[in-house]
């Protein structure tokens, strides 16, 4: 058992024993060695199920929405990206800071699940794409921090520069090529809404994509409905996406959803000034307020 796993089990046990929270949400080992799905622990003796390893992908902040009307406190473990998601929910007043205990884990980057599956446990498994571009591996907000300052230094050392080369490659396509590229990607979309349901920026109580009776979106699975879904989803999370990459990981059809999200991040940076979602819970959203200096070429 790793040192960090030992520490997270200890702290989870302490939190439950002291009654600081009623439930601790962390990760546990799943069906395969390369899966570490969410675990909901409400008994101190069950804290031994908790683990920390390079496959703890799930952004646990999302689950706080399930506990919105819950009276007691909930403790969750947060990586850098998860903490940004938490800030985002805080910014939208979706969660109450007082009702959440945050345990930060400085993250040195997770590994790519799909590649792990094909390379096997002894293979040289690369980092997940989102982690290679992560600007905030260290939790931005926490009540407890696993590993202390030392861990923070280690994380800082592993940080790599973000890069929009994949977005640029799509931008360089001709409009027809680009249309063809995205059409092919979204033609295989099943509209299972795993990307939406796993996304911490998707917090609407009633989602437009569930309004098929009213007719906002058709139930048929075809290019036009799928593209409407893809674009609306992307625009809706624009300025709120914390780059946790969960949408893309959750997609059963391997659609490069983050490419679309990153295009919007890049555009926002260029149009409204550099902005990273979920850094400042008090700040204004680039697409959520009007600034006199906003570009308005279309007017």
């Amino acid at each position, binding site marked *: 058992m790793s040192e960090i796993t030992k520490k997270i089990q200890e702290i989870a046990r302490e939190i439950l024993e002291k009654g600081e929270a009623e439930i601790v949400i962390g990760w546990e080992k799943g069906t395969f060695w390369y899966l570490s799905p*969410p675990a909901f622990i409400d008994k101190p003796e069950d804290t031994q199920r908790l683990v920390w390893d390079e496959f703890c992908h*799930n952004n646990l902040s999302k689950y706080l929405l399930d506990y919105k009307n819950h009276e007691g406190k909930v403790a969750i473990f947060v990586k850098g990206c998860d903490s940004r998601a938490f800030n985002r929910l805080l910014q939208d007043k979706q969660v109450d800071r007082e009702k959440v205990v945050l345990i930060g884990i400085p993250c040195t980057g997770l590994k790519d699940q799909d590649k792990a599956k094909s390379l096997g446990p002894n293979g040289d498994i690369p980092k997940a794409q989102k982690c290679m571009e992560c600007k905030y591996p260290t939790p931005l907000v926490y009540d407890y921090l696993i590993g202390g300052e030392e861990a923070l230094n280690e994380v800082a050392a592993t940080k790599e520069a973000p890069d929009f080369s994949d977005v640029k490659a799509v931008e360089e396509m001709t409009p027809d090529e680009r249309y063809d590229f995205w059409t092919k990607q979204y033609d295989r979309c*099943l509209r299972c809404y*795993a990307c939406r349901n*796993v996304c911490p920026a998707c917090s609407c109580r009633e989602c437009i994509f569930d309004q098929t009776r009213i007719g906002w979106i058709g139930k048929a699975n075809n290019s036009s409905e799928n593209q409407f879904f893809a674009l609306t989803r992307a625009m809706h999370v624009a300025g709120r996406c914390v780059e946790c990459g969960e949408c893309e990981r959750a997609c059963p059809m391997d659609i490069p959803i983050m490419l679309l999200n990153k295009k919007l991040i890049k555009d926002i940076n260029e149009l409204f000034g550099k902005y990273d979602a979920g850094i400042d819970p008090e700040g204004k959203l680039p697409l959520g307020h009007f600034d006199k200096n906003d570009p308005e070429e279309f007017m």
Partner: protein
Amino acid sequence: MKTIAKAKLPLVLELLAKEYKVLVPAKFEGVTRFTPYQQDVELALEENVIMPPKDIFFPQTEKMYKFKAKDKSLEIEEYPLEDAMQIIFGIRSCDMKSIDCLDQVFLTKSYVDPYYKNKRDRSILVALSCIEPMDSCFCTSMGIDPQKAVGADIQAYDLGDKIGFEAISDVGKEILEKISSLLTEEEVTLPAVGEFNLNADVEGVPEKLKEMFDHPIWDDISRKCLNCSACAYVCPTCHCFDIANEVRGEDGVKIRCWDCCMFDEYTMMAGGHQPRPGKKERVRNRFLHKLRYFPERYDMLLCTGCGRCVVKCPVNMDITSIIRQIKNA
């Protein structure tokens, strides 16, 4: 047994494709699924396809009939049903069993579904045996023989570097006759099937679940579920559907499309009553449907051990683990 070298399999498919539409497991736009055979098709025979064959018989979106509604008048017109025969090559035992499950739903219990029946009646099924289970396979736990499928017209055998064919039905014999010039008759021994990584003991589970509707296990199991439909849409047996409209002015098409018991709209009644309001009720219904309700109604489980949901679930809801939890409850 009649055999052919694996490398020469395209010759068989090529020959059949002259007379029939032939669907083969292939990689198409980034996903493995049953795809119409063409010369440049990227066959995927190493492991089972991600998208099961159910959409051949029960497409995700299907037109039912068209209509024209203007003022008080209404015209309804059905679409003609196709009659061309098609061959589906390379269906694994788990997915053959799923077709058996779908047959129960769409072809029995008072009503026959004409859309499903039409596609089913004009399909010739060539099953393909497995020798090396994937990490997520547990078909044997569901009483399925990976080397011998139910309901096949032809059983094809993976013999390592060769493929063997055995005709099961009369139409299967006819098809084998057509390709016989490409095949060699030889004695073969079926290779042993590899070890299964996953398993589930379903003995007594449907009966035990009769008393477990109010069991606290459902609170626990459902908490991590995201209520998406990734599991249902990659499942070879999940068959729930919605009926909806596509209307453009006066013209409309009635379509049916896959639906999922995880969605709020699925059971939401006009007026707002929701009989299954939350994660717990929906997750419980899903697993009770697979492991209790379906066996009660059709005398078979609604799970074939294909393992797709285990792999594709974003939070690793694992039906084998749920079965264990039910057993231990």
